[in-house]
């Protein structure tokens, strides 16, 4: 390969660089072709392009020249199924994605489930439903898992070996808690007026703990445990019929 300096010398000779003269040298049909191809909603075949060109234009040669011109650019002239179209260069596909963050509020149901998991962890889906008195949809758990604030901890050593859920460190950081024990207890909840002070004596609020160590009645998750599959059956209980 020629050195850069040599190459530039050649360039200077072959291609009088002055912009204006270069412009004049560029055949008009290239302008027409690029305008047509740019504005067209679909790729165009050579015959159709030829019909729109002035007489005597070698469309094939012009397309080849245009293709060569655009080859190093961010936009390339490509032939797709024998039709021509402009496309952004393949190596720039990373540029063609836009990453955005959208702020979403958790649904009421999701917040409730999250709160129950926080206070009652490790807790199974059935236990959550027992406390809430309603079925928990798969979507709600999915959203909570997506937040990264809850995680499946293990499996309860009971028939069916249901998953147990707990909160994560991300949960603590989201709610500015130093430790899970900072969640207010019964008396504090009453003190803030969130709980009615006339609740029956049997009412208790557990002292929450997110200790990573499994409880006695918990088994570890198995390597092959697939969350999608784990959550799915319970979401369509009518299908499962048992297990």
């Amino acid at each position, binding site marked *: 390969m020629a050195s850069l300096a040599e190459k530039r010398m050649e360039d200077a000779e072959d291609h009088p660089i002055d912009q204006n003269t270069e412009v004049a040298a560029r055949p008009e049909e290239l302008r027409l072709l690029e305008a047509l191809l740019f504005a*067209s909603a679909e790729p165009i075949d050579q015959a159709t392009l030829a019909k729109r060109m002035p007489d005597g234009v070698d469309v094939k040669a012009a397309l080849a020249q245009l293709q060569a011109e655009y080859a190093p650019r961010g936009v390339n002239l490509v032939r797709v199924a024998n039709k021509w179209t402009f496309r952004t260069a393949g190596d720039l596909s990373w540029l063609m994605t836009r990453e955005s*963050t959208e702020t979403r509020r958790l649904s009421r149901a999701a917040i409730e489930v999250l709160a*129950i998991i926080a206070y009652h962890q490790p807790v199974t889906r059935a236990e959550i439903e027992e406390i809430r008195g309603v079925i928990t949809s798969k979507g709600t758990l999915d959203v909570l898992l997506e937040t990264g604030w809850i995680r499946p901890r293990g499996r309860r050593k009971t028939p069916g070996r249901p998953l147990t859920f707990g909160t994560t460190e991300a949960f603590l950081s989201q709610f500015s808690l130093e430790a899970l024990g900072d969640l207010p207890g019964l008396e504090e909840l009453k003190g803030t007026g969130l709980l009615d002070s006339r609740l029956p004596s049997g009412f208790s609020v557990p002292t929450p703990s997110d200790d990573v160590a499994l409880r006695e009645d918990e088994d570890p998750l198995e390597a092959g445990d697939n969350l999608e599959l784990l959550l799915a059956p319970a979401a369509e209980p009518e299908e499962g019929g048992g297990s």
Partner: protein
Amino acid sequence: MTAEILSFETGRPAEITDGEPALVVDVEGYEGPLDLLLTLARQQKVDLAKISILALADQYLTFIEAARKIRLELAADYLVMAAWLAFLKSRLLLPEPATPDGPSAEEMATALANRLRRLEAIREAANRLMNRPQFQRDIFPRGNPETIAEIKHPKFTATLFDLLTAYATQRQQRVLATVHLAKRTVWSLAEARASLERLVGMAESEEWNCLDDYLLTYVVDPSQRATVFASSFAAALELVREGEMELNQKEAFAPLYFRKRPPQAAMPAPDMTVE
């Protein structure tokens, strides 16, 4: 949508060679009296700044006369302008009064010329604007834009307050709902008294009977024990006061006995104190 270039000359009368507006009676072609005046002014073929307003007023009035002769409906605007021009014309022809009230005739004429110039200027501007290459008519965007894929990263928000409120509300609702459903039946004093009266009446003899035993036969649900006992005791005291029955108890917290009061005078059992 695009705007089409429409010549302002469209539908206008051809240039009049002799200054005689022989055919110019179609008012439909004009956008109001100012437009008509501007067209007439152009026939003077001079800069609008130097136009003879007097001549223009004459042209306008001639036009209006011609239109009226063929009984053309003229909008009021045109007639108002005619009246004003006639007035202006007379002012221009007469010598200026020594102390003019309002603007002088010259000033009025200049103002009219300026209005015409302004209308002409804006039309020229509109023409130039419309002659620009227009989007989607002359110049085009990318016909087949490529989608820029959007990767959304949801960021969830929830506050500790939301969390605690949800938890407290949820738990409380469930608990209060439970209490509500299991609402205890309370024995009223009347119920207790009626029961005791039946008991006393049923007792064949005047033997002492244990109140607790009787109560237990009534009380199926242990949770009702307290209310039954309390009401029965209160009712028993009432019956004793009325002289219907007697109670005795060996010591504090010992079983309580009752019997129908014998017909004769009170005969307290030995070693027994009536509560």
